[in-house]
């Protein structure tokens, strides 16, 4: 069985946020509810200050603390290594948000993160929290996997575009968007990345490109000391850096 994972080359990442926009369009995210965020922060002090950026999807951890915290089993890990939320089981207690070290989860029922409140502009007439004019086809929506426009009172997060990834032929080592045969299975953020800084593949397959890159280019994980073992790796090379702390010195 595959263990899907992502590699992000920070030397290539330009901080353009195309990944954020692609994710928002693919998954009908509310403004500000960035399942795939790019974090901008500063290091150093004037006159030696540097602006840096850092793309942050859900890490789909091997040992997801959000899953262990969930009191109902709504958050679970699939056999192919993706952490999902069953919106039919989620009680909206937000304990998973407390337990996520990466701030990758969002609660639906709260003040809008960015104005105007799109839930009021595009009001829903059914169980969905809102009715965006751009949304995936209904037959792709899957609330038991946290895919689509979420209902009210639940927590949502990045699914690694599970509605695409899970359709990939079994045994595929990498989902390379430059290969027309695989493009439709790759996560939207990987497909949209202009400098091709994102790679998606099977971490359990030593012959996959992602496994080779992690081994050969010294892939590192965010807050690895916590032991969650993210399945998102970063290649820092000589120009990139993974923030070592969540300290307040962010711009």
């Amino acid at each position, binding site marked *: 069985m595959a263990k899907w994972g992502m590699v992000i080359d920070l030397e290539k990442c330009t901080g353009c946020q195309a990944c954020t926009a692609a994710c928002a369009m693919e998954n009908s995210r509310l403004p*500000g*509810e*960035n399942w795939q*965020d*790019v*974090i*901008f*922060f500063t290091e150093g002090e004037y006159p030696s200050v540097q602006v840096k950026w*850092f793309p*942050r999807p859900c890490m789909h951890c091997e040992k997801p*603390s959000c899953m*262990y*915290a*969930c*009191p*109902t*089993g*709504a958050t679970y890990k699939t056999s192919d290594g993706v952490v999902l939320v069953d919106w039919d*089981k*989620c*009680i*909206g*207690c*937000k*304990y998973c*948000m*407390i*337990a*996520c*070290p*990466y*701030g*990758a*989860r*969002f*609660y*639906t*029922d*709260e*003040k*809008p*993160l960015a104005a105007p*409140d799109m839930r009021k502009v595009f009001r829903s007439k059914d169980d969905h929290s809102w009715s965006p004019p751009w949304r995936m086809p209904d037959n792709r929506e899957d609330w038991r996997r946290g895919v689509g426009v979420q209902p*009210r*009172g*639940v927590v949502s997060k990045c699914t690694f575009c599970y509605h695409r990834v899970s359709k990939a032929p079994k045994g595929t080592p990498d989902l390379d968007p430059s290969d027309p045969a695989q493009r439709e299975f790759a996560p939207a953020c990987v497909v949209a990345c202009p400098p091709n800084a994102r790679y998606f593949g099977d971490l359990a397959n030593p012959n996959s490109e992602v496994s080779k890159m992690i081994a050969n280019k010294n892939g590192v994980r*965010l*807050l690895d000391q*916590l*032991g969650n073992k993210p399945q998102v790796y970063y290649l820092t090379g000589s120009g990139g850096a993974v*923030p*070592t*702390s*969540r*300290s*307040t010195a*962010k*711009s």
Partner: protein
Amino acid sequence: MNYLAEPRSFAEVAQYLLNLWRREGTLQFLRLSLMLGREKSIAGEMWKYGVVIGVLSFAFVLIMLFTEGGAAFNTSSDGINWGLAVSVYIFLALISSGLTFIASLSMVFGFRDFYPIAKRCVWLAIITLGAAFTALALELGHPFRMLWAMPAGMQYLSPMFWMGIFYLIDLVLLLIKFDRLWHDDWESPLSQSLSIASFVAVVAASGMLGLVFGSMFMRPVWYGTFTAVYFVLTAALSGAAAIVLATYVAYGFKQDRMPEQLRNMASGHALPGVFATLIGIALFSVLVRMWTGLWSHLDGLESFHALVRSPAFHFEVWAGLALPFVLMLSPKLQRQAPWQTTAAILVLLGMFVDRYTFLVTGQALPMFKGAWASGLAEYVPSFTEWMLAVLGFAIVLACYGLGERLFHLAADPRHRVRTSAEPKAAPRGESTAVHELGS
């Protein structure tokens, strides 16, 4: 039957209310029900104000939740996820646990001096836990789904799952225990077993509530075994303060209105001794926690620096703990009703602040929210959240008045006279109580 005094079963209460309604008519029945009798009494006033405030605040919260949903709260995915509603839940749940601890002093550990407050403690523990659950339920996205999803999920690794299990067991045991006390069964093997089981359950429940936070290794402000111990210790203090205040409220803040054994306890050395000890332990716990938080450079502990600069923290330490500690240590003041009451109020205010600052400080550090949230997260509860807090306290107030009226909360196994000796819920200005609803 002309009046209702210390009914022996809920069927008796229902029958009485039915007869009263038939006899008095609907309007008069409602008036009497709201007053808990024809004459003013402290219990009646508590019930009346509790019901009115509770209904109004509940209606407001419901309207806001139906119209605005969770947006009526100031909590945010990019900042404070758990806000005032959760801190009210912690505050009330730990008061409930503390009251059970205090009841256990006499019923489990044999400190017979504390018998006169045991039954009152058990009743208050039930209603504060009920109010805590209400506050939490109104904060959840899907409270009714919780009823089947938690048992069906069996997430035995989740601290919140076990917290729910232990508090449910605690509530059931408290209800059975109160039923036994209601029927004057203090010392049967069943009653004693219930007391011990209830004590064990409440240690587990309050400790587990601490572990809901203490297990969060990604939140260093909360993380660690000490959090569970801290919750248990400060729960005991909250319970002690609550029972002191509640007892004085029931007797119009006068020791001379109390039954003899309760008066002896209130004016003796044991109560202030226990109270001062618990305050001292809590003060020590707060200060050592602050020391490690300020001293360490560990990533995530920055919010301790913000906490130590906040007026709320200094109110808690100086007014909520240090001052009551001095009052309860002072040989001249510790046995006087006004100072005991003052200490209890200050401690409860201090503990309320403690739960709030504990909760908010632990979440103040942004978790990789980047440009969306720089610096420590800021949070001010919304009016709806304050109304939810008011609802929780109104439930306690109303149910306490009702319990004071219906049940003999000053009961003591050493003094089994049920109806003659003491003026429970004494009417204002009169020492001769009028207990009847419809007489």
